[in-house]
């Protein structure tokens, strides 16, 4: 087996006195698709926000492609990562947010190409070409010059995915990307994610409440409960055959 692209080693996170994550161990292999399920407040978002460098762990290590994300060596000592260190590793990771977070002052095309130009240093022509290709892939080739405010929620979320994908991350994080959408728009977004998942090479971590979707795309499902991984295994093991009582009662709420 190949080396994991992401490893969590006994990761803890507290907000003030509140212990949110109490020792998370996790391995993500390249191209592996992992779904995280669990009740509200169990810490799902916090896990992927730490990987995206939006939240700093209280204890433990997060290793990305062999590099310790939140720690670095300085004069032979291990110290907290600075911005430069984070920036060197962060390029491997991309994220899609629950509330899209598109840049409202930019057109759809600009939303996609700004970071490839300024962060990856691609020239404008290439950046534009890649962005258009990616927007066509998510079915928005005809909206290039529109502003986010002119799109539906489902379209916005597809732009957000194109914007993240065009950066070619090795790991993509999805935080309940359909839960802010009207029910009739959920399908089109899940369809795009399925497409990305089938493409292969990128690892994905999906926080989701869509159990059928998790069964369909995830190689592995984690059930997070009160800050620990209470159950993990293949999608069918966890979602269909688990004996864990809390997991079963959690699942019941989605199977009505």
């Amino acid at each position, binding site marked *: 087996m190949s080396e994991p692209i992401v490893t969590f080693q006994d990761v803890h996170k507290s907000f003030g006195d509140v212990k949110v994550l109490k020792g998370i161990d996790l391995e993500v292999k390249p191209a592996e698709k992992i779904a995280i399920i669990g009740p509200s407040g169990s810490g799902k978002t916090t896990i992927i926000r730490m990987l995206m460098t939006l939240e700093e762990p209280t204890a433990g290590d997060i290793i990305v492609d062999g590099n310790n994300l939140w720690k670095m060596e300085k004069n032979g000592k291990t110290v907290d990562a600075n911005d430069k260190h984070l920036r060197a590793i962060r390029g491997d990771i991309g994220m899609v947010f629950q509330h899209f977070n598109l840049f*409202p002052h930019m057109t759809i095309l600009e939303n996609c190409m700004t970071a490839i130009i300024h962060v990856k240093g691609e020239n404008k022509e290439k950046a534009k070409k890649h962005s258009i290709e990616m927007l066509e892939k998510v079915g928005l080739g005809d909206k290039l010059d529109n502003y986010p*405010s002119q799109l539906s929620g489902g379209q916005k979320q597809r732009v957000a995915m194109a914007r993240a994908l065009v950066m070619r991350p090795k790991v993509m994080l999805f935080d309940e990307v359909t839960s802010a959408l009207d029910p009739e728009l959920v399908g089109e977004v899940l369809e795009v994610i399925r497409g990305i998942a089938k493409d292969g090479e990128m690892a994905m971590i999906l926080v989701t409440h869509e159990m059928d979707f998790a069964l369909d795309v995830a190689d592995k499902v984690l059930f997070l409960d009160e800050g620990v991984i209470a159950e993990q295994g293949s999608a069918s093991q966890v979602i269909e055959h688990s004996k864990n009582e809390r997991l079963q009662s959690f699942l019941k709420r989605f199977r009505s």
Partner: protein
Amino acid sequence: MITISAISEIFPVLMQGIKITVTVLLASIVCGYLFAFIAGFCRLSNNVILRKFTGLYVEVFRGTSLIVQLFWLYYALPILFGIDLGSDFWAGVLAISLNYGAYMSEIVRGSILSVSKGQTEAATALNMSSFQRMRLVIFPQAVRMMLPEFGNYLIQMLKATSLVSLIGMTDILYYGDILRSSNLSQAPTVYLLVLVFYFILALPLIFLTRKMESISKKGVASE
């Protein structure tokens, strides 16, 4: 009485003051915005000393009157510290721009802070540096919020320029006062024309303010 002959007599005299009023205004606008941005960013800096120091500047200049600040810069500074600003022009411009810069720095700061946290996070997720996040994502959105308020301050700065007549600068109001003191019965006509002059000068600023408001609404309806 307000008569045509009086008006034709007064008009050319007041015209002489326009140049000073307009140059003081333009210089105050440029310097005022400059101070606003510098102070606004300093107040958001990670450096505590810088933050506290600019905070003090803002509170002092907002908390005291513009006339007193003007007199300080013009009369007190040279005597107390031997700092001579070189001319009444710079004393006037500095007083107005430091005063309005203090007010407008709060707009700069508030607008930047009010860009939602999700924008910074999305920019971080795209691996932008902190400078790129500000330049490409936060600042362009914040500026759109600043524009309408900045427009309102343009007109206020125009009105404030009339204070420079108090340190002997020959602006519109200065000539108005001269006319009035030479012939008190003309006072109503004089000050009517002074009002008209200021209003005409305000018109392009009002137009600009409208323009700024409409720019700020374009493109950035809520997300």
